[in-house]
């Protein structure tokens, strides 16, 4: 148990992605079977024991520790499992707190799987006595089914792949054919058996991505143009009735987001793999795709209420058809896949699925005009796809381009600054900026932490330090004298901000040392840009 609890601690404290991957990889190489398989299940969210409720843990500790001291401790620590792990009284003959090594992760999981509701508290208490604070924390998190270590399933799989020199996409392909503790996966990873057969399971295929368009134009005889929608790119994978009718939704990173959008998964029963953009219908857009803000209401939620689904109904605008039935179409030219996709639409529910339209333009100039005129909130720009391009993983030169809408800009005044993360943690690199109201008050309109060069960052950091007027924890308020030209993709109404506005993708375009703060833009001006 100690190796696992140390891994969890390491993942909590390690900031960098590479650091986290290295920790997972080292654990996967060193830990015995089947412990490491269970650990992989826990890290990828495929282990949900729920042997006891949080309230039971509360009762257990109140029976052992003065309830007043427990409440004071919980107020200070915050997390229930951590409070209990730290408070758990040691056996009388044991002065030091230690993990005596008598419990293995798989032993713990077996016990939690098989224990009855009534016997769970005693079983848990017995195990707690053999662990140190880290071990008790891990145990309580496993037992309550609340293990959250701030990493995605994809990251855990990447760490596993790294441990054995595998490609994470190959791991992904076999993943759904396997179940914890993944003995067949480790056998394959360590060369003891061939790769498990993923046939009939809803596994993730890596996305095809686009390069930003840098050339002045492309020939529309070679390239088809499509809108680039501002939602979440997703992949729909359905096994069809023949293989149990399972459907999964994957994000661009390969994370399974089926749980956040159950209505989409339920509406798809086919045997196919599709690429599309997940959007929500906004009432203000007359049932058309709403802005990204609306979609954010649905993101990152494990359980979705009926009200969420009703208020922010999701649908998918389809871009591509990768696999239909047993036919893998990925090697075919885009034009042929497009024809197959258009035909495929007939069997899909129009409530949940529509087709991303191809833009009809006689030449590139006309296309540029169409792009300039687009003010739909859900349009991020234009995609240019080579008509003969196969569907290949990653970014391949000259096949697909994204041609984003020109950013909007505003001159804003810096108001607050905060330290950045990681390499930038010693710099004030996150800036909150505002614009003027008609009454001459400055109200925040956004926050940016990119767009500047290293040199500019140094200059901005110095400006913040020399012009601080107040501090609130990690945040510094600065003299309202510096004008920043902020570029953003779009701006929306927002109830969360006092200014009533929220920018999408704001970044610092230029530092306007030349411009007096009083001449920065006004809120009314920004309101005219709302899409």
């Amino acid at each position, binding site marked *: 148990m100690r190796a696992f609890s140390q891994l969890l601690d390491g993942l*909590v*404290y*390690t*900031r960098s992605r590479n*650091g986290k991957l290295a920790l997972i990889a080292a654990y996967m190489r060193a830990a015995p079977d089947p412990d490491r398989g269970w650990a992989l299940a826990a890290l990828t969210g495929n282990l949900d024991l729920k042997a006891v409720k949080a309230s039971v843990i509360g009762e257990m500790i109140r029976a052992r*520790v*003065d309830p*007043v*001291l427990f409440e*004071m*401790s919980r107020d*200070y*620590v*915050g*997390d229930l499992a*951590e*409070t209990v792990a*730290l*408070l758990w009284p040691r056996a009388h003959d044991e002065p*030091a*707190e230690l993990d005596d090594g008598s419990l293995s992760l798989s032993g713990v999981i077996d016990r939690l799987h098989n224990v009855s509701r009534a016997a769970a508290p005693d079983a848990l208490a017995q195990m707690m006595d053999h662990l*140190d*604070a880290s071990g008790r924390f891990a145990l309580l998190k496993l037992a309550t089914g609340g293990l959250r270590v701030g990493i995605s399933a994809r990251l855990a799989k990447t760490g596993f792949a790294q441990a054995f020199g595998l490609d994470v996409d190959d791991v992904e392909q076999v993943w759904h054919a396997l179940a914890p503790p993944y003995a067949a996966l480790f056998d394959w990873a360590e060369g003891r058996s061939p790769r498990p057969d993923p046939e009939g399971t809803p596994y993730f295929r890596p996305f095809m991505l686009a390069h930003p368009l840098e050339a002045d134009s492309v020939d529309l005889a070679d390239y088809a143009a499509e809108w680039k929608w501002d939602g979440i790119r997703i992949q729909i994978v359905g096994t069809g009735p023949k293989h149990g009718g399972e459907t999964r939704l994957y994000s661009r990173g390969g994370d399974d987001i089926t749980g956040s959008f159950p209505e989409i998964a339920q509406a798809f029963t086919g045997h196919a793999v599709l690429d599309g953009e997940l959007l929500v219908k906004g009432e203000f857009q007359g049932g058309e795709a709403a802005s990204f803000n609306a979609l954010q209401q649905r993101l990152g939620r494990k359980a979705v209420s009926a009200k969420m689904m009703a208020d922010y109904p999701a649908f998918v605008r389809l871009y591509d058809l990768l696999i239909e039935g047993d036919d893998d179409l990925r090697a075919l030219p885009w034009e042929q896949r497009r024809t197959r996709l258009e035909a495929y639409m007939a069997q899909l529910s129009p409530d949940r699925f529509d087709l991303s339209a191809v833009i009809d333009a006689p030449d590139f100039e006309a296309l540029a005009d169409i792009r300039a005129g687009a003010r739909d909130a859900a349009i991020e720009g234009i995609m240019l796809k080579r008509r003969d391009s196969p569907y290949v993983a990653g970014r391949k030169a000259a096949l697909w381009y994204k041609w984003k809408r020109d950013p909007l800009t505003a001159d804003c005044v810096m108001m607050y600054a905060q*330290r950045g993360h990681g390499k930038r*943690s*010693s*710099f004030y690199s996150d800036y909150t900026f505002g614009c003027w109201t008609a009454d001459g008050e400055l109200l925040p309109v956004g926050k940016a932490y990119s767009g500047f060069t290293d040199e500019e960052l140094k200059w901005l950091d110095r400006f913040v330090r020399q012009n601080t007027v107040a501090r609130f924890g990690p945040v510094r308020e600065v003299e309202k004298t510096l004008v920043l030209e902020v570029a953003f993709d779009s701006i929306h109404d927002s109830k969360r901000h006092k200014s009533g506005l929220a920018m999408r993708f704001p970044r610092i375009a230029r530092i306007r040392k030349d411009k007096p703060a009083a001449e920065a833009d006004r809120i009314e001006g920004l309101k005219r840009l709302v899409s």
Partner: protein
Amino acid sequence: MAHWIEPHPTGIYVRPADAWIDPSQPQERALVTHGHADHARGGHGHVWATRETLAIMALRYGTASGTAVGYGEEIRLGGVTIRYVPAGHVLGSAQIILDHAGERVVVTGDYKRRPDPTCLPFEPVPCDIFVTEATFGLPVFHHPDTGSEMDRLLHALHANPDRCVLVGAYALGKAQRVICELRARGHHDPIYIHGALERMCALYADFGVDMGKLRGATGVPAKEMRGAIVLAPPSALNDRWSRRLPDPIAAMASGWMRVRQRARQRNVELPLVISDHADWDELTDTIREVAPSETWITHGREEALLHWCMTHQYRARALALVGREDEEDG
């Protein structure tokens, strides 16, 4: 009882001696337990403290006028017999034992019960009034064995030969203790120190604390510090100062590191639970040991300790002393 000793928000006043213990404002006559800034202030008229504490105050405030009191030596001020007894907290730290009118008061200042190679161990003194600190006065605070924490530090160091381990440690006490603990475990490589630690380390060395080879980290090329331990005050951990170091692993030696959120707030990757204060069990065991008829709790999380005293039949009160919440001193 004991009307001759009075708690005030700015310190404890000993009426017959006309002297203040650890006053937070300048006073004519001050009895100082130890050199941390929340106990030892500058600007007093005359200070009674251990030789080491006087030297630390001289370094920090240039205090001129003081009487050095040796451990165990008895002095008399206005009919009060006063003794300084080791508190085990930092170099020169003392509990102040006051006897008057047949009553004994013990003021611990800050103290700990774990061994510390840089100072003498805490001596429990039975008393009538026990004036205790409560920095880690919550039962979640249990300091693990120092050895296991040092092992984790050395393990991280050896596992990352291309990086350095940057340990945040309070400049007075913790830094020198960590260095000595490393030496005791056979780590004899040069240890690099932040400029803010240099004078205090030199003072410790003057008092005979052997810390082996120390080097100033400022101006040293990053390459040279690969695989080395670097010590800095906690405030430098996330500061631009640390940018000069070779891919530092941020560690922090403090009792606060027991709680995840506290370590994460500081962006610490390697939290080391090493404290110069008593943990919960040590606070309560010490009260049992000195068996006072009354306990006064000066600073920290006094509420929980007060509750414990009440439920264990110890009379107790919490003193609301000002300026005593120094989180760096953990």
